[in-house]
């Protein structure tokens, strides 16, 4: 029993070795595997992030006092903000923000000056167009720093005087990048693991090497394992790249444990490799495999909750998302990364991933020998 186990392990290592060589010996492949995930993660991180060069804003100054004017002078003095209009009622704010003429609105309440002089905290209401979340977010940050400077001059001893109350319209949670980047840890690597595994059997079928492999004493199970392991490893390496970018380039703090995150990612990568290999075993050539994968990846992305929350989708589509490994992976990664969820908290995401792998991997192995020609 042990000798046959050792022989089995040797054969699997031999096969894996071949698969790795086949992938990595291609110089084009080597670049494709490293550069796009890096580029894409930076791209996604910045894509929604415009430079603050010209921020149109409106003012509703109901106090109309010395302090509010000084503060407004400071805002205008930056050269970044330019005032589109000075308003007279809060109803007008709705119009300017609603039709996109202004990105932010500053609202000084009528008791602004009174509160300041009485040593109280004076609220400055800031309304942001949340649909343009990244720019809006930066604008809020900028206004906050202007107010902080203003406070410093006004009253160096007590820290608090004017307090910015930012409210975002249309998108109450402005932290796009915090939402997007953790999802990318799963999403970006899926594209390539799926493509890589989808091409692996199809490439061998097209080049005729698959027949050569099938006449060796390798069992479909061994072939399956060795076809799965290299893309799994590559997928995890890619996830790691995106994770590093997220954590250390964009400085998004991670709440959960690395162990839990990788346990989830591993399960997810196995599931997507299972999907990829099934596509591959079904395809007659690389061309077909590539097409099938492209056709599949788009809805997988859309129905994953990456851009739009699953809960907002129509019921039918919500049901469809249950077959989508990415839906569970994104939920899992966000929960672990942002909320610090433990393994026990994410089993609802792990089990479906496991089920997807249990269906697709044996299906792929069976298709190796039984594909109808």
């Amino acid at each position: 029993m042990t000798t046959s186990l050792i022989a089995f392990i040797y054969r699997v290592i031999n096969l894996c070795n071949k698969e790795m060589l086949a992938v990595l010996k291609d110089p084009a492949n080597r670049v494709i595997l490293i550069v796009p995930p890096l580029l894409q993660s930076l791209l996604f991180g910045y894509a929604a992030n415009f430079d603050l060069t010209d921020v149109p804003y409106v003012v509703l100054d109901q106090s109309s006092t010395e302090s509010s004017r000084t503060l407004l002078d400071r805002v205008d003095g930056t050269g970044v903000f330019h005032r589109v209009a000075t308003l007279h009622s809060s109803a007008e704010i709705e119009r300017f923000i609603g039709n996109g003429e202004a990105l932010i609105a500053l609202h000084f309440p009528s008791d602004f000056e009174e509160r300041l002089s009485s040593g109280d905290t004076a609220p400055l209401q800031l309304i942001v167009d949340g649909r343009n979340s990244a720019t809006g977010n930066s604008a809020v940050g900028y206004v906050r720093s202007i107010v902080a400077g203003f406070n410093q001059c006004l009253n160096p001893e007590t820290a608090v005087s004017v307090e910015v109350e930012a409210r975002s319209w249309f998108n109450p949670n402005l932290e796009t990048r915090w939402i997007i980047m953790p999802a990318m840890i799963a999403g970006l690597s899926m594209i390539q693991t799926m493509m890589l595994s989808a091409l692996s059997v199809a490439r061998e079928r097209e080049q005729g090497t698959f027949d050569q492999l099938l006449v060796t004493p390798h069992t479909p199970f061994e072939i399956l394992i060795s076809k799965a392991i290299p893309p799994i490893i590559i997928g995890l390496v890619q996830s790691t790249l995106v994770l590093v970018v997220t954590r250390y380039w964009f400085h998004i703090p991670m709440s959960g444990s690395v162990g839990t995150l990788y346990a989830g990612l591993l399960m997810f990568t196995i599931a997507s490799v299972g999907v990829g290999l099934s596509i591959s075993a079904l395809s007659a050539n690389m061309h077909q495999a590539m097409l099938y994968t492209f056709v599949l990846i788009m809805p997988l992305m859309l129905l994953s909750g990456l851009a739009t929350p699953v809960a907002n989708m129509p019921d039918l589509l919500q049901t469809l998302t249950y077959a989508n490994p990415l839906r569970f992976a994104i939920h899992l990664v966000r929960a672990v990364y942002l909320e610090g969820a433990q393994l026990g908290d994410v089993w609802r995401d792990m089990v479906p991933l496991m089920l997807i792998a249990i269906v697709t991997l044996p299906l792929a192995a069976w298709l190796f020998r039984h594909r109808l020609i």
Partner: protein
Amino acid sequence: MNQAAACVSATALCKAFEDKKARTQVDALKSIELNIPTGSLTALVGPDGAGKTTLLRLMAGLMKASSGSLQVLGFDVSADPQSVQDRISYMPQRFGLYEDLSVQENLDLYADLHGVPQAERQERYQRLLHMTDLARFTDRLAGKLSGGMKQKLGLACTLVRSPELLLLDEPTVGVDPLSRRELWEIIQQLIDDEQLSVIVSTSYLDEASRCDRVYVLHGGEMLAQGTPDQLRCEADDCAFLAVPAEGKPPRELQARLLDAQEQIVDAVPQGGGVRFVTQRDVDRSALEALLDGAHCQPLESDLEDGFMVLLRRRLGPVEANPEAFEGDGDGRNDEVVIEVRDLVRKFGDFTAVASTSFDVRRGEIFGLLGPNGAGKTTTFRMLCGLLPSSSGSLQVAGVNLRTASASARKRIGYVSQKFSLYANLTVLENLRFFGGAYGLRGRALKQRIGAMLDQFDLRGQEKTPSGQLPGGFKQRLAMAAGLIHEPEILFLDEPTSGADPLARRAFWRRITALAEGGTTIVITTHFMEEAEYCDRILIQDAGKRLAIGTPQQVRELVDEQGGNLSMEDTFIGIVERNRQPEKGAA
């Protein structure tokens, strides 16, 4: 010769390819002198890597010569390739048919590409479809045509406009004898009807002997040129046929003769005997010893004999390595190792293999012969367990490989039709992988890899990615990978397709040595003369078994006198006899 009448003329034509990585330069053509008259049929022959394709591509203006001049149809190709291309048609080795388009759509597409006027098309199509006998298949997808039909369609697409010069690069590779004959009839008809000049490269010397003029290339140099008759004369008075004593297989004599390079230029089995060409200064007594009492008679030399004399003179003795194969096997016995009974394979309502039965015995060389689409490859794939049968039974080494445990596959080796090793892995990595796949490891693996490198002459290429190997090396590497685990049974699917005569001799020398060592060999081939190396052959057509037996027995089916009818004529005779009633009924 009048310069104006020449359709292609070259002076001191050279072409070098640079390998940037290795910083080396490969001379594909060295100072070629050519003068091909208009309206003639010209053949370029030579071993793999001789420069045939390069020369054709230069003529077609697809690449530029390194130096020298080349005139085609009176134009300087390097200065004005477009004018040349407007007047010629070129059919590359792998013609670019669109497999997902129908026959008609392919023709339309090429007619559009070449700007053939609409008015001329119908007449042209009709003529081409009639010539190629494809009129019945205009709606069929090109990808669903047999190999021979694809080549014919390729030729038809090349000829949608009437060129002044037609360049064909190995048009008959992988095409069965029947389709090959048909292709040549088309070419001949074109020359007769349209006064076309045709230049064709080929590795079949019987094709070259139909041509007006033959150019023999080797390693980029022009080795010889002349009419087929002139070249044939190189081997005059040196060609003989020896028939071994009753009961002795001719291939033993053939192997013995081929190995004696001091005396013998070439030896191939033919018509139950061995055709051989001696050196001019052959030592008579040494020859007698080699023949060992076999009956010997002189023959008229043919172009292939002349070609072999030219090549051998050029190459000197070639190192063959047959000893390495002498295994511990007890050779042949009557044990049946492959048993096939009423095997049927259907794809939908199409029957690829119809109720076929045969046995193969240990140590036999068993040949599967048939035209394209006859069911050879399907039979093969079923034997190797790659395809389930629709009905019937088959046993290979006592089991059905489709259902048997994976370890049973250790007993067979398989070399598929097209090169199918990992192209970006090196020679060594491929061997290591396949060795490992068969459970070899450690010292045993190392030793087998070493043995394979020696036997198949792969030393010095260990680090080369297998996809970059020259054709002959690829084929040897595929054999090495298939034999690394010393299988009992070796399946070879058209291993010699596209190989030149020299490579084929060396290949068969290895195969006969393997069979002597006790390995059973099942092989498919398009080269009918290679059937002579087999102990027994099976001829299939349209999935049916037409004939089975020793080459001699099969020959006698066609020619009762059992004379020395060539295997190709025998094959065509059998296939046509079988097709006749069908056509009559239709």
